[in-house]
């Protein structure tokens, strides 16, 4: 009781309120499981649910396998060998992350379809007409191809950093014991990188389950598309909540599997001592093979789609009214900026609460808020809309007093979209802030308090100036993710409100692929700069 009394302060109260608000919409979804099922749900369950599960599992499993193969092989080549252009590729191989998969999907479709550059060149230059179905990528294998190309950097980045920093002594021991490069790769590298590989591939899986843009564009039925379809097609929010709850169950299962697979191995490499892996110089054919392999991946995952987008941009330049384009930039920057600022502000409060307040159970609370990132956008969208409609119903008498005619005010405003962004991307901002707090430790704030400064003065004068780096990097990461976001924005945006991402998606869906290039290139450029700067700083930062 005494501990509770001591811990109750403005920080505890604000942090508790934020945590509850962030978690509230998830309760709506969990509650939905227990609502009696209706006809639509029974129909879905009987005829199509199995299909959704099957498709989602195929997409997830194959994308994960291919991402691991590509990500791990690239990470190993870059971490262990010196070959021509290696230093360039070390950074360049992260860049595909700047391309949202839906942009990659419509770009590739544009490249390989009947009027695309490949078939057109074959027809016009070589007089070869191919069976169009040969180049059809709008199917499940095509989606796996797209996801793998644009999501493998998650596996590559995490594994490369791990291998470069942590594996030197083990690999050197294996060499001394007479093992060759292949034996080292299969017997040492793969087992010791297990944690990094699982960490990276879990992110890939969560991204695939969250995706709406690729599957919608390719016409593939997954949980995400089904949630939207039941909601907008049938107008049946109860069934979409049930679908969302099933998907959430699926995600929780994956997170449990991830924890199980990681096991206790994660503690084996807790050493913070960094010993860089000495590079082996490749010459002759081996060097040629290494450079070619990496170059091919880089071309497919970044160079070819960007070159295609640039060529479309040149062709359509001036066709899109600039004032409209600037309005979309303004909208994107506004929602991303406001949401990122709120996320960082809340993360600072919760992070500080977690440091100030003592007690084992209190430390678990902030972790709840991080769950949002694992929950797919479609689920969050359903949860937020349901919560906001309930809120509007509750506030109707107040609206009447204020002279507002409409019964729906909050649920048609931009507040709803920003709330959804905050729930979905809170984890990204929070992780950056939490690691910032970890880095500065508690001695400085304790020193400040002992010198007579209260919690607020300590926060403003001591913590904030020292957290500048973490605040900036957290803001950049959230900002970029929101700029690229599709499902939440599509569903929750107010009428006539477009961002660069929704406009690009809309143009692509309307088969105006070329017009989509301008907005897409803008998103890619901004994201690429931010990703590059972030990873560069991360690597250069104090070890």
């Amino acid at each position, binding site marked *: 009781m005494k501990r509770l009394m001591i811990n109750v302060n403005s920080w505890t109260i604000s942090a508790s309120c934020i945590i509850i608000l962030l978690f509230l919409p998830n309760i709506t979804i969990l509650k939905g499981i227990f609502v009696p099922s209706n006809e639509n749900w029974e129909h879905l369950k009987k005829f199509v649910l199995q299909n959704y599960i099957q498709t989602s599992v195929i997409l997830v499993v194959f994308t994960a396998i291919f991402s691991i193969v590509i990500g791990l092989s690239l990470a190993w080549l870059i971490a262990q060998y010196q070959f021509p252009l290696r230093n360039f590729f070390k950074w360049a191989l992260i860049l595909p992350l700047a391309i949202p998969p839906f942009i990659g999907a419509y770009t590739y479709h544009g490249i390989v379809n009947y009027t695309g550059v490949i078939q057109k060149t074959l027809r016009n230059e070589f007089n070869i007409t191919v069976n169009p179905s040969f180049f059809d990528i709008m199917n499940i294998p095509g989606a796996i191809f797209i996801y793998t190309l644009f999501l493998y950097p998650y596996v590559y980045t995490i594994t490369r950093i791990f291998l470069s920093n942590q594996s030197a002594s083990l690999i050197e021991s294996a060499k001394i014991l007479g093992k060759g490069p292949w034996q080292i790769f299969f017997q040492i590298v793969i087992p010791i990188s297990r944690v990094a590989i699982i960490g990276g591939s879990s992110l890939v899986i969560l991204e695939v389950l969250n995706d709406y843009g690729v599957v919608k564009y390719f016409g593939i039925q997954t949980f995400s598309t089904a949630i939207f379809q039941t909601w907008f097609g049938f107008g049946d929010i109860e069934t979409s909540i049930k679908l969302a709850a099933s998907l959430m169950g699926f995600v929780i299962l994956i997170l449990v599997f991830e924890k199980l697979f990681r096991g206790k191995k994660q503690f084996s490499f807790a050493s913070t001592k960094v010993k860089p892996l000495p590079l082996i110089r490749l010459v002759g054919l081996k060097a040629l093979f290494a450079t070619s392999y990496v170059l091919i991946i880089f071309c497919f995952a970044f160079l070819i789609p960007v070159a295609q987008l640039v060529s479309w941009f040149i062709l359509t330049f001036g066709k899109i009214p600039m004032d409209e384009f600037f309005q979309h930039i303004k909208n994107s920057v506004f929602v991303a900026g406001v949401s990122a600022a709120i996320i960082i502000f809340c993360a600072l409060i919760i992070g500080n609460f977690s440091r100030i307040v003592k007690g084992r159970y209190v430390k678990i609370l902030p972790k709840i808020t991080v769950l949002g990132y694992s929950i797919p956008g479609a689920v969050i969208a359903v949860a937020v809309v349901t919560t906001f409609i309930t809120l509007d119903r509750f506030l109707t008498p107040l609206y009447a007093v204020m002279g507002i005619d409409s019964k729906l005010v909050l649920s048609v405003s931009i507040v709803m979209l920003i709330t959804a962004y905050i729930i979905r991307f809170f984890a990204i901002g929070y992780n950056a802030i939490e690691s910032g707090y970890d880095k500065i430790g508690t001695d*400085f704030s304790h020193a*400040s*308090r*002992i*010198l007579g400064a209260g919690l607020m*003065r300590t926060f403003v004068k001591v913590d904030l100036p020292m957290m500048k780096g973490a605040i900036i990097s957290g803001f950049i990461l959230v900002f970029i993710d929101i700029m690229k976001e599709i499902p939440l924005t599509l569903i929750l945006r107010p009428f006539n409100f477009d961002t660069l991402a929704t406009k690009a998606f809309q143009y692509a869906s309307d088969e105006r692929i070329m017009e989509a290039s301008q907005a897409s290139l803008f998103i890619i450029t901004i994201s690429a700069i931010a990703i590059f700067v972030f990873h560069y700083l991360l690597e250069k930062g104090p070890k």
Partner: protein
Amino acid sequence: MFIAIENVCFSYSNSKENAIDEFSMTIEKGEVISILGRSGSGKSSILRILAGLELPTKGTFTIGDNVLFSSNIFVHPEKRGIGLVFQDYALFPHMTVTENIRFGLFRLSKKEKEKRIKEVLELVELTGFEKRYPYQLSGGQQQRVALARALAPKPNLLLLDEPFSNLDAELQYKIRKDLRDILKKANITSIFVTHDENDAHALADRIVKIDKGKIVKVGRPCDMLGMPIKQEVMQ
């Protein structure tokens, strides 16, 4: 008797055992006390409890007439009027020497602040270093700034956590003497914890030897000379 610590017990949330067990002692005004013990003996926990950074499970702590904690009272660190010099000094890296010292003087007028900063800088012999940042100072200078910062608000009690552990052997010898002079000149009641018996013998008026959170022996340095401290207490 100026300070009274009675039956203080403390345990960490992840442990059932008491890290501090029935710790009691009294201190006279201006006295310099050394808590001597090996690492893990609970000596730093005592400092943190007295500073208000940890919540004891039992006990009372009074300075003069003020009860700082008891079964139903807990005064937050910022209200205790206690100074603490951290083991790694915890000087705010984004503030200059002057700004670090000024930080604890926010209740004084501007004129009083400047006067007090000048006084403590003279006391620790760092006049001329006002505009330097912590990273521009040597280890010994940083320690002096930390001491000046802790002394500036005129605390009732000064706590020092392993004040010499970050200094090399040559500097330790010089600073031990300087520190005792400064503490005596400022006439401030102080408790410092150390694992080094030489520090304790050189600085303290009284030594409190602890092991596993319990007081093993209390006495003047000369009384402790016969004790095989090195074998028992040192790691």
